[in-house]
């Protein structure tokens, strides 16, 4: 049964991709744009279709019409694209024929790519266990479904959700968490195809396929494509498609091309705040290639129409389009200093920057030595081979655009966040370029150089394949039904045991009020809850909630009926809450010893703590 559900969800994600291609194909035909290369054309269609779908879902969300609107939108996409079926089918058939007529080496590489994609796709269908996803990527859309479209100041990170999260919302509206995960797996597949298309501009098909395989086996990519539950790979796909499209800007002077490039850049900016950096790099590359202010203005218009919506939402709700990062200047009276400092630290925005560290970002070699993690392990390819690409590959439009966007995006991330994993959107571009550099050394170098290139590539790919197998094995077992959903979540999902305990105790009391919880991973809570950890809750400001009276008023305003501590309250608010307990205004009604992870989940160290549910007495 689990296997059937897994395959059905993957099939549904594939169908969504196909509908997006059909809709995009129709739009490109209206604009009289045809790019000749079938694979690239289909990629542009998918990108355009998805970006416009996201923008449409935003309006459905704002109008409170998600449950009716999303199925209708999908049907409308199918109807609009039905006339494109023969043309799209012809392009797909040509693509398949080209793959089947390849050399033995190409077929082997293609089979390896398919095997990796299948393994990652199945792993992606396991129940959600990603830490950030359980805190907000999935939890925030889930709250929208339950409580409607409203600002949630209890989870500050909910303001960071962008248009990529509307695809998660789409999956949840259609009743399937697996489909939501499938819609986050899809961009990995598309970005890998984009990387191969870009690499093909410089190297043979074998090398291009190798670049795609290296992208899919990259540890950060296989984490994001399978279990992470985050939409960042959509930015990677839009970015590589934008490179391919922008490189045509000098030869094709049509405003439609400028608008299409802008829409892709807008799609990136609309996914996440850091997307603005990549969108700016794409604008720079477009302006450089087109040498036209007028077409750059068209580009900008397309970008705004496609990707401004999360910023407009945040501006209307808070007065700060990039809430909470500009609140210090735009709404200083409403700043929660502790939550802001915590947010700046967790996103790396408050980190130190130096030239000696900055140059490493475009080469994916910036590692935080004090706290290194696998989320920084992008492999050595970009560091080793990207400089060789810069030196050895002819400076065509593709070279220029790839270099501007990779360097611009990488340096921008280094300057603003200091976390190399946020540079993921330019990874397929950097890898395509890196493999072009490796191919050039192989073609021009002697036996030793060729051997070193082969060892470098084979070494990291073998390591990555092994790491993928070890990392994703439990998820695959859960997705195909070898491990039950319950066992998998007990073993892998942080804070699952405490969520289950709260659900059990408060079941049937949903109408009495909300539960205030302080544990981070709230996705599996089935009762109405408010997140109150001072580190990431704008609403719980220790400076304003310093007395029992303030808390009494806070409970009343937010209909808080229960407070769950596990085992302590956050230290900044311990004093007034413990005073309420001593006064008998907070009475423990249930307690249970639960296990959760200590430190990094990958280390598998668990600890037992006591969760206590207190009732608020009027």
């Amino acid at each position, binding site marked *: 049964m689990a296997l059937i559900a897994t395959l059905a969800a993957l099939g549904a994600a594939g169908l969504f991709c196909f509908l997006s291609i059909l809709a995009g194909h129709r739009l490109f035909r209206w604009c009289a744009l045809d790019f000749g290369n079938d694979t690239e054309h289909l990629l542009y269609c998918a990108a355009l279709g998805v970006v416009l779908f996201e923008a449409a879902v935003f309006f459905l969300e704002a109008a409170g019409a998600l449950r009716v609107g999303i199925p209708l939108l999908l049907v409308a996409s199918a109807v609009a694209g039905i006339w494109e079926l023969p043309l799209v089918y012809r392009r797909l058939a040509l693509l398949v024929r080209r793959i089947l007529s390849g050399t033995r080496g190409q077929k082997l590489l293609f089979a390896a790519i398919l095997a990796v994609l299948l393994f990652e796709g199945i792993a992606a269908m396991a129940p959600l266990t990603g830490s950030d996803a359980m805190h907000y990527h999935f939890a925030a859309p889930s709250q929208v479904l339950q409580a409607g479209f409203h600002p949630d100041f209890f989870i500050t990170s909910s303001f960071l959700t962008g248009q990529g999260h509307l695809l998660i919302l789409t999956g949840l509206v259609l009743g399937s968490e697996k489909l939501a995960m499938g819609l986050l797996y899809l961009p990995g597949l598309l970005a890998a195809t984009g990387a191969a298309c870009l690499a093909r501009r410089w190297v043979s098909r074998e090398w291009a396929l190798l670049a795609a395989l290296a992208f899919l086996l990259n540890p950060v990519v296989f984490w994001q494509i399978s279990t992470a539950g985050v939409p960042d790979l959509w930015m990677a796909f839009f970015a590589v498609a934008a490179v391919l499209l922008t490189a045509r800007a000098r030869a094709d002077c049509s405003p439609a091309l400028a608008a299409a490039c802008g829409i892709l850049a807008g799609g990136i900016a609309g996914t996440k705040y850091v997307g603005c950096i990549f969108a700016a790099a794409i604008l720079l590359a477009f302006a450089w290639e087109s040498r036209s202010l007028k077409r750059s203005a068209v580009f900008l218009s397309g970008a705004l129409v496609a990707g401004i919506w999360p910023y407009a939402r945040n501006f209307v709700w808070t007065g700060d389009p990039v809430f909470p990062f500009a609140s210090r200047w735009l709404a200083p009276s409403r700043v929660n200093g502790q939550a802001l400092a915590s947010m700046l630290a967790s996103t790396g925005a408050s980190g130190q920057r130096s030239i000696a560290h900055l140059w490493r970002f475009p080469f994916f070699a910036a590692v935080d030595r004090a706290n290194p993690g696998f989320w920084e392990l992008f492999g*050595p390819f970009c560091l*080793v081979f990207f400089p060789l690409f810069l030196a050895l590959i002819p400076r065509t439009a593709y070279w220029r655009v790839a270099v501007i966007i990779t360097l611009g995006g990488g340096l921008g991330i280094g300057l603003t966040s200091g976390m190399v994993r946020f540079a993921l959107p330019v990874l397929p571009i950097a890898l395509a370029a890196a493999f072009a550099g490796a191919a050039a050394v192989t073609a021009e*170098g002697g036996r030793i150089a060729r051997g*070193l290139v082969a060892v470098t590539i084979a070494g990291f790919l073998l390591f990555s394949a092994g790491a993928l197998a070890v990392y994703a094995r439990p998820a695959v077992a859960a997705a195909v039904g070898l491990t039950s959903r319950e066992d998998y979540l007990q073993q892998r999902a942080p804070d699952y045991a405490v969520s289950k305990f709260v659900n059990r105790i408060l079941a049937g009391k949903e109408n009495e009020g909300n539960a205030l919880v302080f544990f981070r991973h709230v996705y599996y809570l089935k009762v109405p809850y408010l997140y109150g950890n001072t580190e990431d809750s704008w609403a719980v400001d220790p400076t304003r909630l310093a007395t029992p009276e303030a808390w009494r008023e806070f409970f009343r305003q937010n209909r808080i009926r229960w407070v769950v501590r596990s085992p302590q309250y956050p230290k900044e608010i311990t004093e007034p809450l413990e005073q309420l307990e001593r006064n008998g205004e907070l009475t423990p009604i249930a307690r249970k010893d639960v296990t959760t992870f200590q430190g990094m989940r990958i280390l598998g160290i668990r600890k037992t703590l006591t969760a206590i549910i207190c009732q608020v007495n009027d």
Partner: protein
Amino acid sequence: MQSSGPLAGKCYNLPGLREKMFRRIKLLELLACLWIIGAQTWYYAQFAELFRSVLQPILRGLWR
């Protein structure tokens, strides 16, 4: 004497030129090899502590 092409009309000691080019290519290749080895070593060294902390318990478990 070259009779055609960009070097037409100019006199070159071709064996010497080839040797010079060969040496230059060898030098470039040597630089490329050193870069590939050096950059990788530096890259992996940054993760040495992380690999140790993750692999050690796994290997210890396998040993038992």
